[in-house]
């Protein structure tokens, strides 16, 4: 099974033993050694570029000096602040649209049209593989037919929902699979609920963690999306960062914003991951 794991969802069982079942000591030792090595190596690989980003973001006007100017300027740089705001709004709209599209459909398919789930999965994974530029080339005419300059960048959400499909789909389906949705639905229906109630008052509330995850993965995608926005000449965060890099003497701002957006998204995801767990314990 190839799928995207969502944060906060714990698997029922795994290749390693836990809980009341233990593991043989020698095997445990070898496993831990393996994990230690893997995490160290990859931790380094992941961290080094980020550290480089950090170092450069703190670079002063002369090489070798330190300065937090790049960070303080984040707020002051005119185009940047509005780009950030725009992108955040876009993230919210995209998330809502994604939920409105995916959630009812997925629940419906799971409860009533199970034979479609294979097709559905395929469609949802397709965006991962179709190049964004191909979409742009095809969408160009669509977007151009409408008055381009009076079009707010927020209209990007139509496409962003498509791009987010693979990640959101997997996050939501993890949550949906963890429930015995069919039984819940049958129970609710036998008590007299209609389909609407079943979907939104019985099933969805039990998927809160998965829904949160899908929203955050979508948000991460919007914050990081570059290709389509750039090619369609919109000024969201990433294209703005890029033009800054081309036009600014103080390149440090680019590094600090890049790092900031990474850290921001990461912090959000971690918070959600832990928030879900606390609810489960109580």
């Amino acid at each position, binding site marked *: 099974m190839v799928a995207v794991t969502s944060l906060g969802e714990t698997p029922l069982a795994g290749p390693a033993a836990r809980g*009341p*079942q*233990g*593991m*043989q*000591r*020698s095997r445990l030792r070898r496993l831990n050694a393996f994990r230690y090595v893997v995490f160290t190596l990859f931790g380094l690989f992941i961290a080094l570029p980020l550290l480089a980003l950090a170092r450069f973001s703190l670079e002063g006007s002369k090489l070798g000096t330190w300065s937090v100017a790049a960070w303080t300027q984040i707020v002051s740089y005119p185009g940047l602040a509005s780009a950030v705001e725009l992108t955040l709004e876009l993230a919210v709209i995209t998330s809502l649209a994604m939920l409105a599209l995916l959630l009812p459909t997925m629940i419906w398919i799971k409860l009533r049209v199970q034979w479609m789930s294979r097709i559905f999965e395929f469609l949802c994974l397709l965006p991962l593989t179709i190049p964004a530029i191909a979409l742009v080339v095809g969408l160009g005419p669509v977007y151009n037919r409408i008055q381009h300059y009076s079009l707010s960048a927020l209209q990007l959400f139509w496409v962003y929902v498509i791009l987010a499909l693979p990640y959101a789909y997997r996050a939501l389906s993890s949550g949906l699979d963890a429930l015995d949705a069919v039984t819940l639905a049958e129970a609710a229906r036998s008590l007299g609920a209609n389909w609407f109630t079943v979907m939104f008052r019985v099933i969805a509330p039990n998927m809160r963690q998965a829904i949160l995850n899908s929203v955050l993965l979508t948000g991460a995608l919007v914050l990081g999306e570059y290709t389509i926005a750039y090619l369609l000449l919109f000024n969201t965060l990433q294209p703005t960062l890029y033009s800054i890099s081309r036009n600014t003497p103080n390149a440090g701002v680019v590094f600090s914003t890049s790092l900031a957006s990474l850290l921001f998204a990461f912090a959000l995801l971690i918070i959600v991951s832990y928030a879900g767990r606390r609810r489960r314990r109580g």
Partner: protein
Amino acid sequence: MEGLTRRYGPVVALDGLDLTLRPGELIALLGPSGCGKTTTLRLLAGLEDADAGIITVGGRDITRLSASKRDMGMVFQAYSLFPHMTVVQNVAFGLRLRRMAKAERERRALDMLDLVGLSEQAGRYAHQLSGGQQQRVALARALAIEPQVLLLDEPLSALDAKVRAQLRDQIRRIQLEVGITTLFVTHDQEEALAIADRVGVMREGQLEQLAPPIEVYSRPATAFVAEFVGLTNRLAGTVSGSTVTVRGRDLPLVDLGTPAGPVTALIRPEAVTLASSGEAGSGPLAGTVIAITFLGATSRVTVNLGDTTIMAQLPTSDATELTAGSHVALSIRPDPVLVSVAENKESVAASEA
């Protein structure tokens, strides 16, 4: 196994357990969840390490040996068949690891499948078989390597009742035929009593009693065993001399050394007999029927004695005239009775003939 101890952090799963299996016998480990029976099995299998204690098989100390080097066959509760292999490939797996030639291991695997009665399913995959069939394949797979000990971890718990009973007898039959020393873990006392040579009742990491089924049932060593195995009535009584007085009747004691005083007498339902009395009687053994549970050949009747309730178990034919609300008079068979001191449930040794 001697002095086996296993801790998980602050939880003591096994506390100095001593257990010896005789060659060819089937011991059933019985007990509630968390009592340590599965832990014992896994320690024996080598899937976990003990914190203290020794395990020897045939005189050889295998405590430090890893699971793959011990010569054990194990059957798990469920889902243990490899889904990407056919039935015969599953059964032959252990032999393949031992580098047996293909033709020979297939022959042997088919022999094993024959033993469990599944030769026709040889070419199928696990998901095409029913739960009971899967467990039989698992059994064949475990036996194919001719292990010294067979370990079964609640193999029937995931199956439905009818299949459970059939498979249970089949396992016992095969075990006797092959003559292999077996450890069988279960929480179902009926299973344990039905197939074991000896039953070990466990609680909180310790063995409460290890004895043949009939002894565990009729001569429970402790109050816990008495209550866990079979049903028990608990009635207040007073000990004086060599008898205990329960509701006006004097009954002989199992343990003559019990000090005089108030106790709780543990009486099996089948030791209680009923006779319907015309009108409401009086006295400590008169009561009204609350409910009758039909169990097939026997029926269990719950009777309200005014200050307490008591369960009686009768052949159904004797219970047909009884309905809820009938008045009945009870009598208790004068079998030796196990008592526990009222407050702290101390265990009392059973030793009467």
